């Protein structure tokens, strides 16, 4: 019989520790706050966190969050490959057309490999 990986006494410590995804990285950010970027358009058969509704759309870097584990490779057991993660602002009109309120926007957290300078 296997040993359960998680026993009752380890539940609260496991919950309280969690699993941070930020990693140390010496890589210089490719983008700075305020910079215009375009989300890449690609259609992988495997895992990605780049939603279809922003692919190919223009956005603006709001801030960076340091380097985080890259899910596109990590989900396929191809390594963490940490890279810079940014919050990117997309105007609602860029995504949904002229009927959208000009003040509205959608903010997504996107890894560097999802973005090109625009």
């Amino acid at each position, binding site marked *: 019989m*296997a040993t359960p*990986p998680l*026993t*009752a006494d380890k539940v609260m410590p496991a919950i309280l520790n969690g699993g941070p995804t930020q990693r140390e990285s010496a890589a210089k950010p490719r983008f700075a706050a305020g910079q215009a970027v375009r989300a890449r358009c690609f259609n992988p058969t495997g895992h990605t966190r780049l939603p279809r509704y922003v692919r190919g759309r223009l956005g603006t870097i709001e801030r960076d969050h340091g380097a*985080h*584990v890259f899910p596109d490779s990590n989900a396929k057991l191809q390594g963490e490959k940490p890279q810079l993660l940014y*919050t990117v602002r997309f105007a609602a009109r860029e995504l949904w057309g002229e009927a959208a309120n000009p003040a509205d926007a959608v903010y*997504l*957290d996107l890894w560097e490999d999802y973005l090109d300078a625009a």
Partner: protein
Amino acid sequence: MASDHDHDHDNSLSETVLRVKALESLLVEKGLVDPAALDAMVDAYENKIGPRNGARVVARAWTDPAYKARLMADATAAIAELGYSGAQGEHMVVVENTPTVHNLVVCTLCSCYPWPVLGLPPVWYKSSAYRSRAVIDPRGVLRDFGITVPDEVAVRVRDSTAEIRYLVLPERPAGTESLGAEALEVLVTRDTMIGTAKVSAP
């Protein structure tokens, strides 16, 4: 259940519940899952971790400007000061609702949600209806929740696509100036910290 069968067997369990029970028995029998660990997990999210934690963070931010400054600068550390940390809250960001900005949190990809401060997500938050419509028609979604956002107020939808988890700091309602943190805390509901409700004065 078979549709050619027109009488009741008093079996009130749905197929999903039956499947979960079957999987659980198998995992326990094979020694892969410790039932006491499952009980501890259910207890944690039923009794220890939930939206009252987030309400405490909000009330403190409303009443302590220095705490609010720390919360806006490094939410993960400021929330940990109150004892809340861990799974699905490793990287927290707080976004503030003001008279000119209304934030709304969604996870279009699945159901990402800040567990240490809000507990587990409500069923509607995980529904494809909310997840798909929150980004394309946030004002319509907010109207369904009973909030009309004026045209001149910017709606900012936060789609939790990575491991950053968002907590909305709602607006403190007018007429609550004399209330302390403990009295304010009870006014702060779960939905006000997702952005689908506003805090009402008592």
